[in-house]
């Protein structure tokens, strides 16, 4: 048979398939305004997190420099975001605080993934008591509101930025277990897993070569959304005085301190709040956009 003729004639004029896929993904993503907005915000945030200390006009203000002569100045050309109750430049503190915020987001999401994904895979691939135990523990965690549990944990460990991160990580992983277990269960029953087993693939190979790569897209999507949520969580702890302690430049803690000066000196809370709002929004929009790209129905 002249099987070579079976290829579509158009195949030759198409660009190489891999680039085509990437281009399609980029196009799908960029088609949505909100996704692009999310991406811009996140990129800006990452840039600030990386270069904040150099961008800040008064970097020393971020670490407790006190200048009572300049306290509670409204936004002006000199202090774009105004100054706080000890005369520190709020813009500088917000810019430098971005790095802390990023650290919190990455750490919390990272630890949650490191705990949740393996547990989810194990629960999905095994049946019987192991999976039962994992899933019931997960259920118990999911049944308690995360922030309340985190507050309790910080209460036990003592306030502080590190403890806040630990507490948030400990309440964040059950979501990943649920997600990965469900995805693993459905992937496990795909025919290609049967095919791999027929070729002699053992359970570990099935798990790491066949199942895990196909679970990655939802994990990435959830992770990008969770970045925002973890930042919000840390800010909440900071606001409650359980996270970063003033004068450490953390947005939640800044709001907590500035709260006492509302409404007259609104800028002390408004700008850190805006920063949190935009960052969380950015990560959520990014996650939405990624979900559109990864959604298999698009294919």
């Amino acid at each position, binding site marked *: 048979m002249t099987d070579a003729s079976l290829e579509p004639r158009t195949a030759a004029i198409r660009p190489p*398939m*891999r680039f085509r896929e990437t281009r399609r993904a980029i196009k799908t993503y960029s088609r949505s305004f909100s996704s692009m907005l999310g991406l811009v915000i996140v990129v800006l945030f990452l840039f600030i997190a990386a270069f904040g200390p150099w961008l800040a006009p008064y970097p020393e203000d971020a670490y407790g420099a006190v200048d009572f002569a300049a306290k509670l100045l409204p936004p002006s050309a000199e202090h774009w975001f105004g100054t706080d109750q000890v005369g520190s430049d709020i813009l500088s503190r917000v810019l430098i605080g971005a790095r802390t915020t990023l650290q919190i987001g990455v750490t919390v999401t990272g630890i949650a993934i490191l705990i949740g994904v393996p547990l989810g895979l194990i629960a999905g691939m095994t049946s019987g008591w192991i999976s039962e135990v994992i899933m019931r523990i997960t259920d118990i965690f999911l049944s308690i509101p995360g922030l309340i549990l985190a507050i309790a944990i910080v209460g036990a460990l003592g306030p502080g930025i590190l403890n806040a991160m630990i507490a948030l990580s400990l309440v964040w992983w059950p979501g990943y277990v649920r997600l990965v277990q469900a995805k693993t269960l459905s992937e496990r029953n795909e025919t290609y897993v049967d095919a791999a087993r*027929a*070729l*002699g693939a053992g359970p570990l*190979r099935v798990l790491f070569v066949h199942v895990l790569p196909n679970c990655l897209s939802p994990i990435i999507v959830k992770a990008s959304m969770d970045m925002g949520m973890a930042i919000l969580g840390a800010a909440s702890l900071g606001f409650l005085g359980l996270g970063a302690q003033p004068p450490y430049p953390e947005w939640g803690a800044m709001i907590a301190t500035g709260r006492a000066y509302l409404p007259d000196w609104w800028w002390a809370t408004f700008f850190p709040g805006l920063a949190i709002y935009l960052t969380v929004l950015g990560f959520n929009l990014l996650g939405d956009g990624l979900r559109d790209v990864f959604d298999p129905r698009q294919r």
Partner: protein
Amino acid sequence: MSDPAMLAIRDLDVHFPLVNGQLVRAVEKLSLTLRAGETVGLVGESGSGKTTVGKTALRLVRATAGQIEIDGMDVIGASNRDLKKLRQKAQIIFQDPHSSLNPRMTIRRAVSEGLILNTSLRGKALRDRVAETLDAMGLSAQFHDRYPHELSGGQKQRVCIARALVLEPDLLVLDEPTSALDVSVQAQILGILKDLRATRPALTQLFISHNLAVVRFLCERVAVMYLGRIVEEGPVEQVFDDPCHPYTRALLSAVPVPEARARPDRMRLTGDIPSPTNVPKGCSFHTRCPIAEKGLCDTTPPPLRRTGEARMALCHFAEPMLETPAT
């Protein structure tokens, strides 16, 4: 039986318990032997257990009772080491080529996987072997680094065939390999499979299908399943031209024939296939059988009768072959 048996299934039972306590009797007391080099069709409707037989033969599904041997090797009790040898000997191709390829693997990787797992072939030798096999399936080099979703259904099924054949198996189980494909693509795949009989005469194929026309085209022998049992077995042409079991007759007359004039000898079954959780007593076909006799078929399981040279039927009314001395 002078030829060695490549696949021997004896008294196989496969039961699945359901959550509600019922038992699905997918396969019941099934025996089937494939001689080396033979192509045998296993036909039946949904719920007949034909797919389960194929999967159990490769131990993708656990048997409840019975024996399965592939080239003399025990399948059901095989140790992990023996299983590895078995995997190389016996391969399976599934119905839906789309879902049987990992969407995140290029087809080159998909075809390499079996070799990496089962042979010491690596590097260039491996790549050459994979390329050669894919080429033989009509997939030229430009396809080798593509992902499954970039291929058409027919191309994907060729990849699946290549993935199975690259291990040079002795036994190939084909589970409805063309039923998800269009007619013209099906013809191409059937052509490839039929060519295998010439290019690899030692390859034994168990072809599972609900499509009788395809079985007629491809197979030498056919076994008809109904509710987990083989009700008729024999050479394809004899079974199709002169079926002994009423179910086979009904099945054959239900096939839509691509001809303008309807056949006059139509035989229609009434009612539906009973659920395999609730297999009728006696002959499992008696609820739909036009010639069933009260007091016999609904109480007594029918005997397996030899109805001809290498032919068998599971029916009270099948006429046994007259034992005439061979001339």
